[in-house]
Structures are given as C-alpha cells and as structure tokens.
C-alpha cells in the first residue's frame, strides 16, 4: 500500500468512525430518553390513579 493510499484509507476510516459514532450516539440517546419518558409517564399515571 502506497503512502497516498494509506492517507486515503485513514481519511475514510476517520470519517466512518466520526459519522458512525455520531449516528450511534443519536440513536442511543433517543432510546434512553424514550425509556425514561415512558417510565416517568407510567409513574405519573400510577400516582394519578391512587
């Protein structure tokens, strides 16, 4: 592998990691927040029923 090809590989690997990491962060954050929201809504519903 030439030095130029190595640089191309490094640029694409960094891009894939950056964009992939960002996408995973957005998805994970969304799932965690939806879970918290459902738990809080359920708690509120139980309190209202009491």
């Amino acid at each position, binding site marked *: 592998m030439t030095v130029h090809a190595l640089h*191309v590989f490094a*640029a694409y690997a960094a891009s894939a990691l950056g964009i992939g990491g*960002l996408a995973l962060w957005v998805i994970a954050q969304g799932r965690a927040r939806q879970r918290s929201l459902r738990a*809080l809504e359920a708690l509120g519903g139980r309190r209202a029923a009491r």
Partner: protein
Amino acid sequence: MSEATQTAAQVASVRPSGLTALANPARFLALSARLLPWLTGVALLVLAAGLFLAFRAPPDYQQGVTVRIMYVHVPFAWLSMLCYSLMAASALGVLVWRHPLAEVAIRAAAPIGAVFTALTLLTGSIWGKPMWGTWWVWDARLTSVFVLFLMYLGLIALFRALDGSGRGARAAAVMVLVGFLNIPIIKFSVDWWNTLHQPASVMRLDGPTIHGSMLWPLLVCALGFTLLFLALHLGAMRNEIFRRRIETLRRMAALNAERAGGRGVEARA
C-alpha cells in the same frame, strides 16, 4: 349565524400550515417518526452510490489517489457551514418569531456541526500531509474553520450551562447570530488572503473548474451526506424534545412530592 359562531367557524377553518403546524411538538414528533426511516434509507443509498462513483472516478494527474479524500472532505466542509447557517436561521426564529422548535433546532444542530467540522479539519489535515508536506498551517481558511469548531464547542457548553428559560434561549440565539459573521469569512478567506488552501473550485460565479468525471461523484456524495445530516438533525431534534418532556415530568413529580410532604406535616401538626 351569530357573530361569535361565525368567528368560531372561521377559527376552525384556519388550518395550521408549514412551520406553524410544526410549532406543536407532538405534531412534529409524529411527522418526524414517519419521515426519519425514509430519510435515513435514501441518505444511505445516495451515499453508497456517491462513494461507489468516487472510487470509480479517475485519479488526479497531480494528486494521484489522494484526490479521493476530496469526496468526503468537501461535503464535510460544506455541511459544517450549512449547519451553522441553519443554526443562524433558527436563531432568527427564536428572536423574531419565537418559534418553539427553533431553539430545539439550534441545540440539536450544535453537536452535529461540531463533529462535521472536526471531520473537515481531520480529513483536510490527512490530505495536507502528502500534498502540502505538512499536517497543519495557520492560514486564513484553516484558522477560520478551526474558529468555527471552537464556536460549536462554546455553544454546546453554553447550552449545557443555560437553565432552559426563554431569556437563556434568546441570549444563545444572539451568540449564534454574532458567530455567523465567521461563515462569509470562511467562504471568502481564500480570496481575501493569500492562503495555502486552494481557492473555490465548485461554487464559483464562472462555473466549476473540476472535470465532470470528478464533479458528479462529488455532488452525489455531497447530496448523500446532506441527507444524512438532515436525518441526524431530525433524530437529535426528537431527542431534545424528549429531554424537555423528561425535565418537565421530573419537575412535576418533585413538586407533587413536595406538596404531599407538606400535607403530611400539616396533618401531623
């Protein structure tokens, strides 16, 4: 028909449209939930096609295969500026129209813009070493993009420090608008100053200077990354709305617990 009934009928007949309709977070969540899978799917397909074309494009007569870095570096650079422009437009939405989703859009865009700007700097640096013989120079283009990256980080820190009140949102919107001055500086830095970074070769008044065999893959990659950016932003906006709802519910739960505690003390007394 009485005047009051007529007015009620008129009000009922006025359907919210466009941005007004999206001012309702519940409506935005329902619409974005339907749109997001399609947007992500189309973005990935276009991006795959763009990268396929990029690797089939001929190597440059001077740069060799290193020119392939351009197919990711240039879209990242465009999107880092587009993201900030979107934040500035949303800042106007906060200050002028007080649109409820405008602040959500700013807060959601900041981390995405920071990542795109970091990737612009990183891929540019990886390209610069074999082409310029150096990873970094403090020329006007590189420095102004680095300033953009610092601005994103500063805004993320500011949003974390703010209490979420209307006044805090307006202060952040003013900061975003002030920072927008850097966008034309980035764009025209290569014309205004003597820089190592080459001048614009696509967005020029006299047309692009890149050969079609390289221009088309670049444009398809740019479209793919733009669609991906929009999908990420939509997802991040949904997350921000969820965060606000969680905060409100937690506050209400704490208030209810406090009231119940107060009643308990009164009953014992």
